[in-house]
């Protein structure tokens, strides 16, 4: 009872301390987002998603596209991987071992849990198959279970890599497998103490020699002390053969999804930035990950903007910090990234899709949608475009929260929704002729998607 009273009081105060409601937000997209002065009221501004069922509704997609739920009932569906034969692997689970350290942690934990799924952590990989290519995934098998909050997935050659919250694992994979042929081999342990940000994102270099593992910080802004931040807020480059690792980029607060750019082999990441210094700080970002770069956390953000909360300060590290490439907006919680293909139609032919889980630290929510960042010449060019919306109503009723996004090279966007625990599949309403070429089981080819001869 007492706790309820405290929560009610906090919620009321939080609402009162919100940003002025009708002020337009500053422009936060692209290479040069507007960064207001940092501000923190007596309580952090909060607006927690209110979960409601989808019923007969479904997410909103652009004209000329349709979306269907291809599977539901997962134990927290977070990331997906489209295999060469079109099968989809779904990583299910929820991790983190943090214990409340301060009075605040108890209260904040209760409040934030209201906006998430209460499904039990599945700790498994589920495989979905559409054998006849009609868009209905009629076969569903458990590919592997007894995992520990699996998240990042990557397939290179005959090896399927899975990033659990505490280890990088490898399964042998043959085309057509519906379950793993044996237990996994551990490639390397991953930093797992506390695991405040537990999601271990994953990408493989095109030649399969290296794996890139995103490891989030163990706090918002060092409030658990610097000792627990050893080996955190960085991307590891792991040698696939030996399991040896080295830091590839550091100071990158929470790199929640990684992707390799087709053609160039460049590693890209979406990164969640820090909270509790205002509704418009700090923008989450999309960036090409530069080898050896330091991205500022915890001492500064977006280049050289000092965050005085991290003490003792480190002017040398601040001077070293580089600016990321592209702002996605503050608190949107970008958790998925995938490069597109011309098979998804000319509007989305060149660029990345970003899944935005949605904010808590804003009175006017941000995120709760999938956006498309158009590219030109291999770089982001232009404003993000809303692609899949309708996850949240203006009154806060929330039916879904997008996490992982994956592009099926045959012309489909796969979206994992960890609130309704549904896998959504968006396709062009009319199949784009060029995308019909690959048949089931054939390896996807980049060359048979000419940009001409599409219905749009």
């Amino acid at each position, binding site marked *: 009872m007492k706790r309820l009273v405290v929560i009610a009081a906090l919620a009321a105060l939080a609402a009162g301390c919100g940003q002025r409601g009708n002020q337009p937000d500053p422009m936060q997209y692209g290479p040069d987002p507007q960064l207001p002065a940092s501000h*923190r009221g*007596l*309580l952090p501004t909060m607006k927690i998603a209110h979960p409601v069922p989808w019923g007969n509704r479904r997410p909103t997609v652009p004209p000329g596209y349709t979306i269907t739920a291809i599977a539901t009932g997962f134990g927290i569906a977070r990331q997906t991987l489209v295999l060469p034969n079109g099968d989809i692997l779904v990583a299910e689970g929820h991790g983190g071992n943090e214990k409340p*350290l*301060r*009075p*605040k942690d108890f*209260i904040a934990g209760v409040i934030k849990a209201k906006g998430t799924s209460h499904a039990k952590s599945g700790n498994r990989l589920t495989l979905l198959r559409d054998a006849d290519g009609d868009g209905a995934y009629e076969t569903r098998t458990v590919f592997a279970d007894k995992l520990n909050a699996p998240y990042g997935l990557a397939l290179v050659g005959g090896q399927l890599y899975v990033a659990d919250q505490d280890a990088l694992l490898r399964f042998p994979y043959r085309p057509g497998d519906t379950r793993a042929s044996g237990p996994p081999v551990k490639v390397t342990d991953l930093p797992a103490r506390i695991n405040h940000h537990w999601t271990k994102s994953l990408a493989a270099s095109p030649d399969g020699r290296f794996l890139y593992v995103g490891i989030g910080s163990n*706090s*918002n*802004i*060092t*409030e*658990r*002390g*610097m000792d627990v931040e050893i080996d955190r807020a960085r991307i590891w480059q792991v040698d696939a053969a030996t399991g040896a690792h080295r830091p590839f980029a550091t100071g990158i607060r929470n790199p929640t999804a990684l992707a390799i750019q087709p053609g160039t082999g460049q590693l890209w990441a979406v990164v969640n930035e820090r909270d*509790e*210094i205002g509704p418009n700080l700090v923008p989450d970002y999309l960036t090409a990950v530069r080898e050896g770069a330091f991205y500022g956390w915890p001492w500064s953000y977006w280049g050289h903007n000092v965050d*005085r*909360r*991290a*003490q*003792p300060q480190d002017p040398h590290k601040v001077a070293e910090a580089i600016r990321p490439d592209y702002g996605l907006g503050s608190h949107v919680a970008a958790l998925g990234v995938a490069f597109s293909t011309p098979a998804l139609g000319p509007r989305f032919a060149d660029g990345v899709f970003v899944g935005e889980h949605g904010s808590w630290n804003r009175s006017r929510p941000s995120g709760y949608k999938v956006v498309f960042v158009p590219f030109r010449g291999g770089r982001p060019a232009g404003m993000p475009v809303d692609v899949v919306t309708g996850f949240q109503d203006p009154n806060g009723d929330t039916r879904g929260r997008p996490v992982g996004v994956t592009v099926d090279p045959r012309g489909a966007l796969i979206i994992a929704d960890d609130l309704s625990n549904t896998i959504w599949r968006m396709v062009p309403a009319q199949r784009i002729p060029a995308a019909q070429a690959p048949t089931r089981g054939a390896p996807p080819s980049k060359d048979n998607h000419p940009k001409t001869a599409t219905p749009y």
Partner: protein
Amino acid sequence: MATRDPRTPARTIHPLHAVLLAGTVPLFLGGLLADLAYGSTMEMQWSNFAGWLIAGAMVFTGFALLGALIALIRVRRGWPLLCFVLLLAAFVLGLIDSFVHARDAWAMMPDATILSAIVLVVAILATWAGFASLRAGATP
């Protein structure tokens, strides 16, 4: 003249109320000392101690406030009234101090230390007022 023995207090503070009231002082003092330690060492653990000590102080302050409110039913002036008003002030300031301690890392500084010092002084004064009526011959 007065028939009451001058060595007997005019009224006594309930022992439970006394424990709660007096307990606020070491807890708020501990909070302030932990804040000072965090402020000088930047060692996060001190701020966790401060947060919990002040949370504990708030529990004591809350129940002491309730006790003071009950005492007001009998006497609505003098020391009991002053004790109640000071405890109310300590409660409000302590709540603000708790919220400031919920800020992440250095965002709580220096506000946390300043507030902890003020609330400690108020808690000492409230305790003083609460026990003042115990002095021999004191009138409520």
